[in-house]
């Protein structure tokens, strides 16, 4: 019997995990309930108070005999009413205490669209019960589910632990179908407690979706511009026999031959940052000394800074030949002369980051 009980619990847990990974909402709820029934050794139809070991069997039986009260109603009853039900006024308070110790959360949801097909849900979870470490353990593990409008598919499941906080804010992202469904359901369930689920609908009637995004630019398959095609001044800044990368090639004309503002976005491996180098080179070549260039970088770990430092070290002497005033960061330059190539990159970084402003 013990063998069966233990195995059944484990098997049901496994089935539950499978349901979650397949995104079956209704079945996962049932399996979780069944699993808890096995673990707690009670029927779901039995009184939920049976989950507490310390409540006398006799009282629970009495409560179960009054079959016409659903579990939700218990929460609204006062201690005196409860005492009356079991015909034992003294027990009223005890039962009341236990009724309000069963994990139950009140949930409110704020939906924020982040794109036309995605929603961010900000779920505020407030405990609606009395948390006691002796009864519940240090942590109650809970789940946050988002079901679609038919309650069939699980859109999101998020495990979280509750440790007696007065308020928890959970965030999750879910997909949004087209056309917009009327509503979704947010469900918060304690993992190991029967009768602990709370369901809240999220209504999408007043939802305004963000505007459509403009289509992305196509990356043209151009032949990379070789360094030999560039001016002498450019050659100072690039390694010998190198070519411009594909993004630089596509934008070269805009960056090098005009002074228009320009934005370039793209995945990091394309090297979009390197376009800024071209703009910088144009600036150095053409502008008068009265103009300044500002490079803003939130992370300060940009390759541009490194690249810039490397340029300077490479064109160090030439710079002095061209124009005295064009020397940048002479301190860094001197350092780079001393250190080897591999090390110097890191030491540049430290100087750049350490002083925040160079």
């Amino acid at each position, binding site marked *: 019997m013990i063998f069966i009980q233990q195995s059944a619990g484990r098997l049901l847990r496994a089935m539950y995990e499978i349901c979650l990974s397949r995104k079956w909402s209704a079945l996962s709820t049932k399996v979780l309930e069944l699993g808890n029934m096995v673990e707690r050794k009670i029927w779901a139809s039995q009184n939920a108070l049976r989950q507490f070991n310390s409540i006398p069997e006799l009282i629970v039986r009495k409560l179960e005999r009054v079959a016409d009260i659903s579990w939700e109603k218990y929460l609204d009853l006062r201690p005196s009413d409860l005492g009356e039900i079991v015909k034992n006024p003294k027990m009223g308070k005890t039962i009341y205490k236990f009724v309000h110790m069963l994990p139950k959360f009140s949930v409110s949801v704020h939906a924020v669209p982040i794109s036309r097909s995605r929603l961010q849900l900000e779920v505020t979870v407030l405990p609606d019960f009395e948390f006691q470490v002796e009864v519940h353990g240090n942590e109650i593990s809970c789940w946050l589910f988002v079901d679609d409008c038919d309650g069939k598919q699980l859109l999101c499941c998020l495990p979280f632990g509750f440790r007696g906080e007065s308020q928890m804010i959970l965030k999750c*992202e879910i997909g949004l179908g087209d056309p917009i469904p009327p509503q979704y359901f947010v469900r918060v369930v304690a993992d190991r407690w029967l009768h602990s689920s709370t369901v809240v609908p999220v209504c999408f009637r007043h939802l305004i979706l963000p505007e459509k995004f403009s289509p992305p630019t196509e990356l043209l398959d151009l032949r990379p511009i070789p360094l030999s095609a560039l001016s002498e001044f450019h050659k100072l800044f690039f390694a010998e026999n190198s070519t411009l990368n594909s993004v630089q090639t596509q934008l070269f004309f805009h960056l090098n031959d005009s002074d228009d*503002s*320009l934005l*370039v*976005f*793209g995945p990091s491996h394309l090297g979009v940052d390197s376009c*800024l180098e071209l703009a910088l080179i144009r600036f150095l070549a053409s502008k008068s000394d009265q103009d300044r260039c*500002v490079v803003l970088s939130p992370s300060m770990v940009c390759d541009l800074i490194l690249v810039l430092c490397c340029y300077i070290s490479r064109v160090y002497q030439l710079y002095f030949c061209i124009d005295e005033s064009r020397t940048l*960061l002479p301190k860094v330059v001197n350092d780079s002369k001393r250190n080897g190539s591999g090390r110097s990159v890191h030491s540049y970084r430290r100087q750049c980051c350490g002083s925040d402003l160079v």
Partner: protein
Amino acid sequence: MDLTLCKQSRIIISDPAHWESLSRKWRTRKVIQQCSLYLLLDLDLVDSKKGAVYEVAIARSRFIESQLGKVVRFVGSGFAAANASDVGDWLGVSKSMVFNFPMHNAEEEKSVKVVGLTNLDPVNRVSSLSRTIFRQMRQSNAKSCVIFVPNRKLGQLMSADLLSLYRRTANFNKERWWEAYEMSVLLQELVSCGIGLTYRGMPENIFSALMTALSVGNLSTLIVPFELCDRHFAAENVYITDTLSFDGHSQSYNDLDNEVLRGMSSCAVKACTIFCHASKQEQVERVLFDPVCIESKLPAFFENNLVGEIVNKTIETKEEAVDYLTWTFFYRRLPKNPNYYKLAGSSMRHISDHLSEMVEEAVLDLENGKMIAVENDMELSPLNLAMIACHYNLDFRSIELFSNTLTHKTRVKGLIDILSNVPEFEDVPLRVGEAVQIADLLPQLGLESVRDSDLQQQKLLVMLYAHFSRIQLSSELFSDLSVFLRRGLSFVHAAVDVLSSQGWLKPTLAAMELCQMIIQGQWDKDSVLMQVPHFSSELVARCNNMNPAVESVFDLLDLDDTVRNSLLQMSSSQLFDVAKFCNAYPMIELSCSCSFDDTVMAGSQHEIIVTLVRDLGDCEESQKENISKVVSARYPHEKFENWWLVLGDERSNTLLSIKRFTLTERSNVRVLWFVSPWC
């Protein structure tokens, strides 16, 4: 300081926060007006925790452009963004000049894989990964790997596991390059097998040695905790062991920020594998493979921005404040995604209502905090507190806290308490297990553990007390402390200003003392000699027992060389440090003269001319810059001297006049103005 650097250079590289505070006074600063090219990196980070500052900095440069009527070129780059055209609109870039390359060819060069695991417990999940990672590293045959782990402890576990696996299979012994560095035995053992382990607060030279070793090939694996991910790593393979990080404030596990995750995965050259809980898999994939939609984070920062603009007279009425908002990215996004900004509709009326409401709320908040004054319900003018907040570039809430909690009875302990409550230090991390560590330190420092007190505040308090009592902290706590010390100083300076504007003498002096305590790392009641490098309390006791007793630095200087050497018993390098300190120790003679006669009318204004003569010794012209540099073994940053000249009446605890200045010349003349008090 920063400004002079800017004046000298043609190219200014800065982080947005710095530039934001520098460019506030653009009307008077020529340098800022001269900027004609803005290179903006990582524009997608406008939508990150600190993105609001970036947005403000860029919005201001747009505003300056419009005011001066000068052509400014903006060239920006960033991660693939779905709404790139909005950013273009904001920066005034024509549609044809916004290039937004799609994500889909990302897989060509490197493979990024997200693996969902079912283990619910985050610690278990990570520690069970070592074998999997080891096998993958073997299969991929990568020369260098970086493994990101949630914290130092898990890193240690991971390294121990890997060590046992490596030992069984490989012999990674190259020439013993690591012997040049002072590494712990554990780390040496790891490094000899080709594994590097890093943590926050690691000595910088060892850290960079490990980085170099990784790039050169002396190390095959580097284990890095999440909090170090802002350093630039590059490796063939990257493994990210989890997407949750522990947050000490809520004592729970939170998702990593998107940009952090992206940054970590971009360290990979060839392949990147991310392990996470199965429920997160989809979300992580979206973060990595889908273009971002950049939203504005301005609303939370707006009040501070407003303070800055009002102080610098860019905004003088509520109308101008609304007008100013139209320069922001926030304004561009409002009609595009109204629900995100808690707007019910996207019509012009909705938006203008929302903007004016936002301004009204911010103004009301600032007015309640005594930051600004509102006249005729329209005109905004800054009050003293706002100017202090702006001058030190502090959150207005901190200044509000100061003005609410500082009283004429506040002393050093009270100031420390207030300092540890400053809201801006909320981002000092609370790591796993630090709660226990802090609780252990409490009795040692003579602090009482208050049960339900804020952990964050307690941590700051403990760190400060430990700094003053000179107690060794763990390397992570120490690195937090050093960040705290650098930023904390400007808070104390601000406190001095707040107190002195109230005219309380003793609290002002206490705040100045706190400043000195922070820099020298000692309590106000400790001996002056503790400031001297390599001085311990035993040595100070020995000095005091001398006949005549050596109680100050000058006493020490006056000693005979032989007597001094026998007293100190130090090595020559230590003696050199001592000598360096003593030579820099300021010796100042102060004299003052009054311009008025013996009879003084109460309530009228007078001036006192104070002459300060500094004994500079025989220093040369070239060393002038170094004069004002503070020599302190305990303060981890560069610090330049600041002097306060205070005129006050101790009996009535009133401060009559105060002046802050620097002393680099041999003799200085300062004029103090004050109003003679009523007796």
